């Protein structure tokens, strides 16, 4: 039985250490959403917002005159590991609200309209928590 246990761990380890580069080219598309007029349906740089439609609508519900940054993050696999992201962004006074979507690897940040949003700064904030920001979409609401 112990041999089987070690074999299982070994096989999983092999899988883990294998190069996962195929994930890089995989983009999670937004699910079809039939409601019209919702903010998540806007195009950003020719692309749809890659968000959970319901989650996004709930996040921006009742908000006006803000920027919303939708950040794609690699390595955000657990709640406990993502805590630092929320804490880091909350130190920024222009950040009003933040939401973490673990299932899609997205971080939503609500910025005041006067905020200057730069991908390099965001990448640094995410990296300070040990994860990697791979994409940024910003819309104004």
């Amino acid at each position: 039985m112990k041999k089987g246990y070690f074999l299982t761990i070994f096989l999983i380890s092999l899988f883990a250490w294998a190069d996962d580069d195929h994930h890089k080219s995989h983009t999670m598309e937004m699910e079809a959403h039939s409601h019209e007029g919702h903010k998540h349906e806007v195009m950003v740089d020719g692309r749809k917002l890659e968000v959970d439609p319901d989650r996004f609508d709930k996040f921006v519900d009742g908000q006006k005159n803000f920027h919303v940054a939708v950040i794609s993050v690699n390595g955000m696999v657990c709640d406990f590991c993502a805590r630092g992201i929320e804490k880091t962004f909350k130190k920024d006074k222009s950040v009003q609200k933040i939401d973490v979507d673990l299932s899609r690897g997205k971080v939503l940040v609500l910025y005041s309209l006067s905020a200057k949003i730069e991908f390099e700064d965001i990448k640094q904030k995410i990296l300070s928590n040990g994860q990697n920001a791979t994409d940024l979409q910003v819309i104004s609401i």
Partner: protein
Amino acid sequence: MGILKKFFCSLFLISSIEARPISYSGGSTLMSISDNLKDSTYYHYSPTYKYSIGVEQVKDKFFDKKFTYLRLTYLINRKNTKNSQRNLYFQSALSTDNLNDNFYGMHGDWETRRLFSGFGYKKVINNFRDFAEQYFQLGIAPYQGNYGDFHTWILMKTRKNSLVGDWKTYPVLKFFKGDFLFEIGYDSDVDWDVHLMYRF
């Protein structure tokens, strides 16, 4: 001492180690672990996500001695993908009382939102008798909670301490919510294996 009394004493007296050895930049972590061989309390601070420095107090039950260690943990390698994270760490420590008392080792993990696997090796050197600790862990999350939910993991842990000999394999439950993490395992030989963690 009754099992329940022992368990609750463990909860409040002890400290922890292997899991989450480095926090986010500027973050602190307070950990505790208790098992049949030691009770320990460990505080660490992470100047960056690459390393942490800290102090650990260990009550060694085998030698009936207390040690205070200054510890360093360094992230050797991390690979983030969309669905997984893999880590490899180096850890080392020096006793504040005697530089001949120290330990070093490696540990690593790989996890997705559904699966977890981890391993560790630690060589402890002291004036009494050197020994080594090894462990492997394999786990699955029975459900995938959202951010802020109560999260649960079911794991199997197998470990060996060269002071006591054989490999012991036993089930472990891990729970976390917000900044708190709690892990508990039980084996009739190992007794309670309890980890607590608070990150701030």
